[in-house]
């Protein structure tokens, strides 16, 4: 296990040059979000989802990705937006952070953009608490994209569960 992780580290380091500053842009309603491309494993259409009981509502269940079982998270529900019926535009972005794989259900995938660090600003202080998953705001031309922090997206829900109690 450790070796594999180390190996992946190597690849990540190697690929960093070509992947650095590149973001996969997807949309939820009107807003556009960006994910660091190095986390993205693949993009697939919506799949039949097997519901798993007793999980937070934003975890829709698990899917069979060529023999690998991957949980899927509805990003709309994750961000407390209203649920939208899945259509053939709906995509699942499969990301892998360290050892954990996760499918993100989004309205649509747009494009891959290079956003240099100089064009990324952090969120205003005041908003920080509500937007824990947003790492920064990337400016591309005159539109802004919200850049997600994948690690927090996958790990920070315990906090939330506790505060909801």
């Amino acid at each position, binding site marked *: 296990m450790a070796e594999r992780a180390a190996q992946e580290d190597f690849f990540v380091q190697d690929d960093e040059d070509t992947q650095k500053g590149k973001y996969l842009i997807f949309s939820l309603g009107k807003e556009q979000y960006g994910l660091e491309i190095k986390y993205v494993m693949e993009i697939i259409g919506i799949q039949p989802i097997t519901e798993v009981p*007793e999980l937070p509502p934003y975890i829709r269940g698990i899917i069979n990705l060529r023999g690998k079982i991957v949980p899927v998270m509805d990003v709309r529900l994750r961000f407390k937006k209203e649920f939208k019926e899945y259509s053939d535009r709906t995509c699942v972005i499969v990301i892998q952070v360290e050892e954990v794989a996760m499918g993100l259900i989004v309205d649509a995938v747009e494009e891959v953009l290079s956003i240099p660090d100089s064009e990324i600003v952090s969120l205003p202080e005041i908003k920080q608490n509500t937007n824990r998953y947003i790492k920064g705001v990337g400016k591309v031309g005159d539109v802004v994209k919200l850049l997600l922090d994948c690690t927090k997206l996958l790990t920070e829900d315990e906090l939330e569960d506790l505060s909801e109690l």
Partner: protein
Amino acid sequence: MADHGQTEQMLEMYIYETTQNIEQLEAVILAAENADRYDEDSINEIFRIMHTIKGSSAMMLFDSLAALAHKMEDLFYFLRERQPAFIDYSLLSDLVLEGIDFMKVELQKIKNGDPADGEAGQLLQSIENYVTVLKEQTTAAAETAATAAGQLKTPMPAAADSSIYKAVLHFAADCGMENIRAYTLVLQLQEQVAELQYLPEDLDSADSAELIREKGFTLFLRSDKSYAELEEILAQTLFLERLELSQLPAAETAAAGAKDGDVPETMQQLKERTAQETNLAAGSQAVISVSVSKLDQLMDLVGEMVIAESMVTQNPDLKGLQLDNFEKAARQLHKITGELQDLVMSIRMVPLATTFHKMHRLVRDMSRQLNKEVKLQLLGEQTEVDKNIIEHIADPLMHLIRNAMDHGLERKEEREALGKPAVGTITLEAKNAGSDVLILVKDDGRGLNKAKILERAQAQGLLTKPAAEMTEQEIYELVFLPGFSTKKDVTEFSGRGVGMDVVANNLQLVGGSVAVDSVAGEGCTFTLKIPLTLAIIDSMNVKVGNSCFTIPIASIKECLRAQQHTLLHDTNGDEMLMVRGVCYPIIRLHQYFALDTPITDLSEGILIMVEHDKQGCLLFVDELLGQQEVVVKALPAYIRNRHQSKGLSGCTLLGDGSISLILDVGGLLN
């Protein structure tokens, strides 16, 4: 990139090899310590292992490891060459084992990707000191011996007088034990010639007998005896069929230089060259090591293939068509995939021997610290279990053995007073029982003390019913409850009350269980029951609403339809059903998992009676989908970490590629 990959691979190989070497080393040392002496072979073996570790560690730039191995190599070089008469073996073993422990820690660090930054300085110093002490002793001894022997010893013949001979001996066919015969010859010759090297080097193993049979036994001698004299000596060997003795050309001897020291070097080279040739001839390796992750991948792929196969052969497009040739081909495919699946499973099966042998070290260390003499007996160590399961039982076994040594076995005086053998025995036994493997940990100590267990459980508030009503078995089972420990004082090894429940939990993780039996004064036996494999189970698929669940067949007793008149309600409104005079609670799966289903009337759906640990209940489901062998997959880590419910143990893929959740019957009942 290639570079990185290579380093990675080398590191993996290094870790694997060194771990193996260290394990081997530990085994040799423990065996030597048991025999209370280091014979020449084990010293050579240790020397060889240290040499290997030194070489590879230095190559991988792990300096502290290399330095330590080097020191130990020095130590054993000294032992090998000078053969000191008085060695404190237990001190020596302690020293080496300490070194091994250090290496293990460092290796673990390397495995975790941390820098191997341990400081071996103190250890090096103590080895150094030990060698110095040994040296002094030996020199003193040698001096006395030298004075006594006077001038009797003939000085080593000068190189100029001696020549190098090469002799190849072939033994008569069917004489048997060629290696032993060769060894006798070596012993004989050692007294008569100045230098002696031989091939194969390791005369201990049966393999070498095979080699000698095929290629003959090769000797390199340096002696001042003439060709004829040597031939005469060698010809006396029993069962000798053919002898090829040749004096090596003067040129080779000369080329090696006139200096005395260089001659053995040449012999060494000669020997190495011949060894290489032999190795080449001996051909390929019969065993390769494969990383577990690759096996897991293979297993996943085969699982997928099985599913893909049923997707093809049971394709809805084929329905109603008459396809004789297709059916034939499909059957053939089915047979092959089945065999492939069996084969992959068998690759993952590993004998328990390695896990068992690790316990030797534990017993050794503890018996010293507790000052109890204990013998560890291993039985059925060749029993095979899935690799994944082995990882889960090493800890429980260790716990049980610690407990047996600390609590179970009495002190020596006590044992003698009771008329028991002074040396306690712990037996570790493995055997197959159907689709399970039983592992027994038996000790001949004082056994469990019922009164003490009860008293303790009462004090901890762990009793659920009056003590008088409990059976012997139930009392013993109390020790598996969390927070239970009868030992008042905490020792280094046990007594913190986190032992037995960890054992039970660990086993439950792999679908096993643990039971205990005891006879006061005669010892107690822990029986671990573990499944042969986790990967494939026979199961029943059921439907609840739109979801599909899988129940392991092993826990299903029967399926039945409810009849209204046998239905009961208790005061909480919980439903129960009377089946043949026994009352079973009903768990409605759709309620338990909060699922929508049109079937809520008990008479419409079906009830499945499941049992776990002699506790039974009825599960209410919509309908049965059928029986199937399924490949068990763990739930994704993300879900495992967040799942509160105990009702699910994993998931599996069905023939159509959809996912079914596997119910954990034990969890449901609790």
